[in-house]
């Protein structure tokens, strides 16, 4: 399975990371060598194997329905790159 520029451009769109031509070429090379190494997994037949769901040997613990978090808006917004105290502000999506 060879990874070409088209695939790189597609993945970069999905992961919201911009790539220029040069970067795309390098990524394609890197990914191809990594995937060649990963291809080894095809040697194994795994049709009848159940996938691992978790190594944590426990069941999902359920939490009581209580409001524990208070209004911490200033803490939440404190780190935001924009100045607004009430909202997160982002550039518009183009529709």
């Amino acid at each position, binding site marked *: 399975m060879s990874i070409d520029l088209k695939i790189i451009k*597609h993945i970069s*769109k*999905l992961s*919201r990371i911009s790539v220029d031509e040069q970067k795309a070429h390098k990524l394609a090379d890197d990914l191809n060598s990594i995937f060649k190494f990963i291809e080894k997994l095809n040697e194994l037949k795994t049709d009848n194997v159940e996938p691992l*769901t*978790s190594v*944590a040997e*426990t*069941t*999902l*613990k*359920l*939490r*009581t*329905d*209580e*409001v*524990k*978090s208070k*209004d*911490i*808006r200033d*803490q*939440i*917004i404190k780190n935001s790159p924009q100045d*607004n105290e*009430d*909202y*997160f*502000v*982002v*550039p*518009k*999506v*183009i*529709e």
Partner: protein
Amino acid sequence: MSKNKSDYLINRKDNQYEVVIGLEVHAQVTSESKLFSSSSTKFGAEPNTQVSLVDAAFPGMLPVINEFCVKQAIKTGIGLNAKINKRSVFDRKNYFYADLPQGYQISQFKDPIVGEGKVILDMPEGQKEVGIERLHLEQDAGKSIHDLDPQNTFVDLNRSGVALMEIVSKPDLRSPDEVSAYIKKLRSIMRYLGTCDGNMQEGSLRADVNVSVRVKGSKELGIRCEIKNVNSIKFMQMAIEYEANRQVDLIEDGKSIDQETRLFDTKKNETRSMRSKEDAHDYRYFPDPDLLPLEVSDEFVNELKKNIPELPDDKKKRFIDEFKLSPYEATILVSDIETAKYFEEVVAKMGKNKDIKLAVNWITGELFAVLNDKNLEISQSPVSAKNLAILVNLIKNGTISGKIAKTVFELMLDGDKDPQKIVEEKGLKQQSDPKAIEALIDKIINDNREKAIEYKQGKEKLFGFFVGQAMKVSGGKANPQLINEILKKKLQ
């Protein structure tokens, strides 16, 4: 039980088209805190004041599931006659948007908590069964506000992380009317269970509507389009009509239909294609490694089953059996739990010798008219069940006539006054003493001897004249039944 009895068709010159509809309803779970965090879920708070570190996806934050939300989902599944999956898995649905702080939504993909079920609709042409495909739990997203600033979008994460139940129907719906009935039924069931308040104005209930068309009689499904995020029944109906016609027009023109996501424009009343999101559908679902599979025991489910309240279909049966209501009346009264509760309270408070039919008429007639007029829910009724019961009893035992009761009712609206008191204060008791009425009637007949003779000679319409006179003379208080009886006797 019919499946396709609806005759909603799109007609063109040579062809008739059937519309096939499936709904994905998103219902906000009624709970104190969110699905995976302990922030409040109250509607209408100041922006970003109900957001925890987990909700805002800060580094190192982890989800912990709310037990009550799990119970609410299972209860809803029971109400939908559905299979409860004791083992279910939470998956991440990965995509980027400003109101999705984690960059993924925790949802359920391959193993939802509830499987197949069904819902029965009462349609004019008979009952219709609509299949439920599945119900799963997922996080709601925050809100993006686009119109506060020309360059920017403002994001409020209060809603981010609130528990949603996504209820997917099978493509069994065939008309806008069926869609309306389906949404109302779902809403009713969830309100009975207390699992979702169904308040569409507050966004507690919204739906993605999948629409396709096919030539009548065809067994194959056409290409479907999904109309996203419709938040009122009226808009759903309008969207379906528009979309079905749009698709039919394309087919008639020999064009093909693109499978796509569309939005309903509420100003233009049309659907339009969303900006083509090139990779919109590659959500790269995988089991959330921060959560383990959810496992519930038989005891857990059975405990919930035991405590399920009487649901609409059962309540309707009981109302028909116990109170001898007609199916039509029963359907109206059970359609909303608050209405059913109100009705049963009225019946209980009427005590012995109750006239249930009369109570039904008053609720579905006068009371509903007032609620509609003032845009109130029955839970906000200006007249309490207790007092309505008293009013109905007053009519039943002859204290007042039905006509006078209407006047009393008007006066009750202001502050839920006790009708008994109103009747006494205003002296509205009807005259039910036969002797007094006889005397009254004798006088009227005496004063109108010619008309009496004309009546006896065959002018039957004059009966009304005498009734009218009796009413006038008695100030409307004479018992109409007695008037009738005595008049008949006297005018023989």
